[in-house]
């Protein structure tokens, strides 16, 4: 039996598949050009970024405390949420305190992770996604399938239809610029009536307490400018020691994510608006969320917490390209998701233990990761974990007969010589399903079992 992700890939429409392949291949090409053009060899920079993150994770409690102090000094209210439910409740109670009924949200993977939107809507709060991609996802009741380009699996024809159906547009028009203009008109109206803005954060500088947000649409600043309340939901691993470290991370992030030297907007948020600022939120809250992160930190896959959510590993991954992000059945798809999802949502490990298997272990992800995460090693450690925890695996080939054979030299030599018999056997009809599937697509080379050893003996005579 093929694994779930393989079956998923087999069944997705050609249209969706093409969108994913085109979008991700373009991402890989742009990344390569941008990084190598400016840095020649970007590897020392990737290693440095990885080392800074590693250092931070080793001293996370310290840096968390520092950040809290620096943020508080700036007049920001700091909250800690250990679970997704805690985070949702913390946000809801801040919103209730301020009597908020309508808000705008800029793209945040942490918010996706805790399924914030449906929760707020259930609780009577009108919650509008302001990132164009996320906005379209929301209209379609869909799920994002990529960290940076949530609608990588869609094409403009489908989007034009959505706009028509939802009354955002009066007629069908699939010209990208027209689509964007129409979304803009719609969203601008909403910004003005919203009472709060929710964002994530790409970085929190523990020395200054400033939050850094990068976007390409400027939607987060629109979300903050007109209203009185800003809530940032931030994974505890987003902290960096010093503001000067941004020179490393910002240079890598834009280039790795979208092939841009810098994203169009890089916002430094100093806290609530000061007395001499014309506008901006009067109240600012930061909700630090753990939601499984300390468990990951304690595991042998802690390196994955270095991740800065750039999506380079998704773009380059040949399995992701074939299967799409939705195949991974969790907020995070592709290599980052194959490692993070099964361990971040710890109780779901048995159910998601197939994710780390969805890799030929080609290591393309390791090469592009801006924070030097050895992703394929982590995939292997998780395969080992699944085996030790005796989680059944679809179609897995039992390996102990192999181990017996490979530790019995004379048995091995006999098997090699005997394998030549296969050349005369109709193995295509052998009643072994995986073998049949394999041979359905490929031909096997002729067996030359034992020939080399024989040749060598004669040569040595």
């Amino acid at each position, binding site marked *: 039996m093929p694994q779930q992700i393989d079956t998923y890939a087999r069944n997705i429409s050609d249209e969706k598949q093409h969108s994913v392949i085109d979008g991700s291949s373009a991402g890989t090409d742009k990344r390569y050009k941008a990084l190598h053009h400016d840095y020649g060899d970007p590897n020392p920079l990737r290693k440095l970024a990885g080392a800074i993150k590693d250092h931070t994770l080793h001293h996370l409690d310290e840096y968390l405390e520092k950040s809290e102090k620096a943020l508080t000094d700036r007049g920001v209210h700091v909250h800690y949420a250990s679970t997704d439910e805690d985070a949702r409740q913390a946000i809801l109670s801040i919103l209730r305190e301020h009597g908020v009924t309508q808000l705008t949200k800029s793209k945040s993977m942490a918010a996706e992770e805790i399924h914030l939107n449906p929760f707020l809507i259930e609780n009577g709060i009108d919650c509008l996604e302001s990132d164009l991609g996320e906005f379209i996802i929301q209209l379609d009741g869909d799920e994002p399938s990529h960290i940076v380009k949530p609608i990588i699996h869609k094409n403009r024809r489908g989007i034009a239809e959505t706009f028509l159906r939802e009354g955002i547009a009066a007629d069908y028009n699939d010209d990208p610029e027209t689509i964007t203009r129409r979304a803009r008109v719609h969203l601008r109206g909403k910004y003005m009536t919203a009472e709060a803005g929710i964002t994530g954060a790409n970085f929190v500088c523990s020395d200054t307490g400033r939050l850094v947000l990068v976007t390409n649409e400027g939607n987060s600043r629109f979300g903050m400018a007109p209203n009185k309340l800003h809530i940032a939901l931030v994974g505890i691993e987003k902290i960096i020691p010093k503001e000067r470290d941004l020179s490393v991370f910002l240079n890598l992030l834009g280039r790795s994510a979208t092939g841009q030297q810098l994203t169009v907007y890089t916002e430094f948020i100093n806290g609530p608006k000061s007395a001499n600022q014309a506008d901006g939120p009067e109240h600012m809250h930061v909700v630090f969320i753990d939601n499984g992160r300390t468990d990951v930190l304690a595991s042998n896959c802690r390196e994955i917490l270095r991740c800065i959510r750039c999506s380079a590993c998704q773009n380059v991954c040949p399995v992701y390209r*074939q299967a799409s992000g939705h195949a991974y059945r969790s907020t995070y798809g592709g290599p980052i998701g194959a490692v993070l999802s099964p361990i971040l949502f710890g109780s779901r490990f048995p159910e998601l233990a197939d994710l780390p298997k969805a890799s030929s272990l080609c*290591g393309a992800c*390791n090469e592009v990761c801006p924070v030097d995460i050895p992703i394929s090693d982590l995939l292997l450690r998780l395969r080992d974990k699944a085996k030790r925890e005796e989680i059944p695996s*679809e179609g897995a*080939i039992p390996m102990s007969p192999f*181990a017996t054979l490979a530790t019995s030299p004379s048995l091995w030599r006999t098997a090699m010589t005997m394998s030549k018999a296969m050349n005369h056997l109709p193995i295509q009809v052998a009643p072994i399903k995986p073998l049949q599937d394999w041979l359905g697509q490929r031909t096997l080379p002729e067996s030359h079992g034992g020939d*080399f050893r024989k040749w060598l003996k004669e040569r040595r005579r």
Partner: protein
Amino acid sequence: MIVSDERPVGKRVMLMGTCLCDAFYDEAAKATVEVLEYLGVTVEFPENQTCCGQPAFNSGDWNASRKVARHTADVFAGDLPVIVPSGSCAAMNFHGNLLQFEEAPEEKINSLARRTWEVMDFIRHGLGVKTWPGTFAEPTRIAFHRSCHSRGSNSGEAILELLGSIGNAEIVPFGQGEQCCGFGGTFSVTFPHISGRMGTLKMDHILDAKPDILTSGDMSCLMHLTGLARAQGRPVRHCHAIEILRDTLPVKS
């Protein structure tokens, strides 16, 4: 990828033939012996060798793969360089093994890791051969598939340099060279659709470049790719890069 900086060199080596050469690709193993001997190297072949253990390791059965790794480490005990005509089996020795023994390291495993060379890397960087004294009889277009297990090692560059220096050889680039062929051992069994699509895409790119020969440092990738291509009715001439080194040498009179 962890590759030791202090791997031993020298004119006496042990050959790890790999299970794939044992079963199917004897020519690659023969060429390895012939090329090394041409370079004045004495090649020992420990009879009790079997497989590096990768199938079990990659599928997560580290109990099984550690047994095989210990067997391999015993077979190749000593201080001679261990030469492997496969980037992926070499990487199993110097990287995979360290991973699966990370909680309880064993000296014999570390020793094997320190001494293992992929053969083309050994020729280029161990023996210091910069140009290959071979020539094709006719202009020959070579498509070189850089196998994934040579990422992070020097093998890819070594193969390109050596093949590129052969007379009448032209290395032809093809699209999306960084992409995997889709084999991945047991991956091709448990993910047959994705594996097949990856291989087909790779073959599309390779055939677009109209090569005379498709080569690689890993026969496993070539087995998968050419197995697909043959089933699709578009066979392509292929061999291990070490066979090209052997076959272009001047014939001894």
